[in-house]
């Protein structure tokens, strides 16, 4: 497994909000090491048995924390992310609709501070058997040796479910986020799966927009020896229309599904035409 392992001890930023409190409970039910929450002005209260602090600094005085998951609303997300980056090694930003100028600053600051950012606009990360920092349903995951990385949410669940149903499981599953600018990208995650002893094969789920998949294809060609199966959503999408995700818009030739599929196949990646083919392809490859 990668990034989220038994040494990850997490604080929830924005824990008193509707999303924050609900998903904290879900994460705890999945035995994730959530040790505290923050909500400025609500320090000293509790949610269940979990203590709430006014700031990460305050929480760190009482607990050993190295990661954060952020549920703070978009207008305040940059502030929350900077607070996390200044003091922690990992920040998972669930929040959607963060202005892209804010995200660029978050990503650059994280690079300087050597903090790993997942998201924004991500379902999060799950390492079955260890825990999850995210909002994904857990029953579709199973411990195993397939690493999954994806730009989308529910499509990831679709694929993870099929991998599980076919009798395999996941080492770690990461949604990198649907926005135009995100922290970890495909190449970063694939490299970590390559280096991870518990991962035998990888699934990469892309979609129209940008050229992250094309860059990943080149990267795979050069650096990845383990088998990779890919799926690209949006083959029939019209150009120029934003398709749900802010990042999913065809602008020019490199952002079409056809271009991405071609680039991946040229790099020796097996590209599934349908999500349901993915599990079978992996069985053949490992």
């Amino acid at each position, binding site marked *: 497994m990668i990034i989220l392992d038994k040494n990850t001890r997490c604080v929830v930023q924005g824990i008193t909000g509707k999303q924050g409190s609900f998903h904290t409970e879900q994460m705890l039910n999945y035995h994730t090491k959530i040790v505290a929450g923050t909500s400025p002005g609500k320090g000293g209260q509790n949610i269940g048995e979990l203590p709430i602090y006014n700031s990460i600094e305050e929480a760190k005085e009482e607990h050993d924390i190295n990661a954060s998951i952020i549920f703070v609303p978009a207008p305040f997300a940059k502030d929350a992310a900077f607070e996390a980056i200044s003091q922690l090694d990992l920040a998972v930003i669930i929040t959607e609709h963060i202005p892209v*100028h804010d995200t660029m600053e978050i990503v*650059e600051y994280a690079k300087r501070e050597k903090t790993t950012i997942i998201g924004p606009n991500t379902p999060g990360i799950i390492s079955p058997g260890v825990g999850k920092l995210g909002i994904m349903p857990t029953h579709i995951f199973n411990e195993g040796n397939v690493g999954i990385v994806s730009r989308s949410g529910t499509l990831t669940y679709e694929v993870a479910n099929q991998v599980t149903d076919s009798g395999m499981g996941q080492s770690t599953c990461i949604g990198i986020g649907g926005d135009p600018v995100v922290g970890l990208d495909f190449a970063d995650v694939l490299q970590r799966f390559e280096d991870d002893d518990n991962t035998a094969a990888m699934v990469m789920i892309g979609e129209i927009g940008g050229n992250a998949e094309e860059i990943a294809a080149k990267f795979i060609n050069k650096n990845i020896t383990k088998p990779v199966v890919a799926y690209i959503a949006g083959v029939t999408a019209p150009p120029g229309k934003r398709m749900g995700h802010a990042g999913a818009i065809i602008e020019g030739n490199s952002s079409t599904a056809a271009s991405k599929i071609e680039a991946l196949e040229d790099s020796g990646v097996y590209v599934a035409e349908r999500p349901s083919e993915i599990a079978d392809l992996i069985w053949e490859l490992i």
Partner: protein
Amino acid sequence: MKIHEYIAKDIFKEEGISIPKSKLAVSPEEAKMVSSEIGKPVVIKSQILVGGRGKAGGIKFADNPDEVYTKANEILGSTLKDERVEMVLVEEKLDIISEYYLSIVLDRSAKKPLIMASMSGGIDIEDVAQNNPEKIIKYYLNPLDEFLPYHGREIAIKMGVPNSLITKLGAVVCKLFNVFQKYDATVAEINPLVVTVNGIIAADAKLEIDDDALYRQKSLVELEKVNKGEFAYVKLDGDIAVIGNGAGLTLSGMDMLKLYGGKPATFLDIGGGSSQENIVKALNIVISDPDVKTVFLNVLGGITRADDVARGVLDVLDATKHKVPIVIRLTGTNEEEGQRILKEAGVSYETSMEAAAKKAVELCKDII
């Protein structure tokens, strides 16, 4: 969200980028009038949001006012790339020494703003990018760093501009970056950026705003919204905002202001059947404009109900702490009710347009 050229140019101008003399026109008559004011050959540019309008016939040159009329008449009401042309920008034709290209975009994979600049500007920049990519320089910006004038000069030097232009062009880059940041742009582009004897002028302006940032770009959203048909809105250079229901009445209100020595800051026609909510929107558009010192609301209710208007006015007065006085002329459908609502709230009103116009001019004078 894509921004119309004429709005983008106003923004560029505010940030100190020179733009050509220009004015918006919605009819051939108006276009002709504008070109007479400009007094030299002009370019007539359709104000649509789809790209490639030049090649689609949406930009025409005219040497004299009669020709302007003919060509504006051809463009207005025509359909270019599925978009109907409702407005044209009539703009002085520049005496071009050279055409440059300057743009700032969001580079998704680098996760940073990217400046691209070239001395080979003009409509065929795509061909330059394809065939002579070395002629376009690329410069990445660190989103956490302040953009300083020397960054701009470095770009100008890399482009290869003459020494006499290095500082001037550097300043334009700097100002365009300010626009990019201040307005949460994903694209800010000037093509062509024209060198003339009078300096460097943005002959075109392309601006796209991040949809996720619209919550903090409200003034821009309002400007664009009103042009999607909710209101007919034109910004003028005076200090009294004129709002009316119906184009004729609104125009007439402007004329009355001028008669008493005032200067209109806006033409805003709220149209027929305006709701309370529409009144609030219209008032908010003009009172958020720092140039507006007084508002002249001129309503003669037909389908629009005076009581709705009165409630809308009170909503705005209650919700804002602004100090911009609103002079109200309120008559027509449901006027008794409308006037009663204002009276009870202690808000004064006029029943004649002239009296209201005069009052607005006097109030505005006192403010200065």
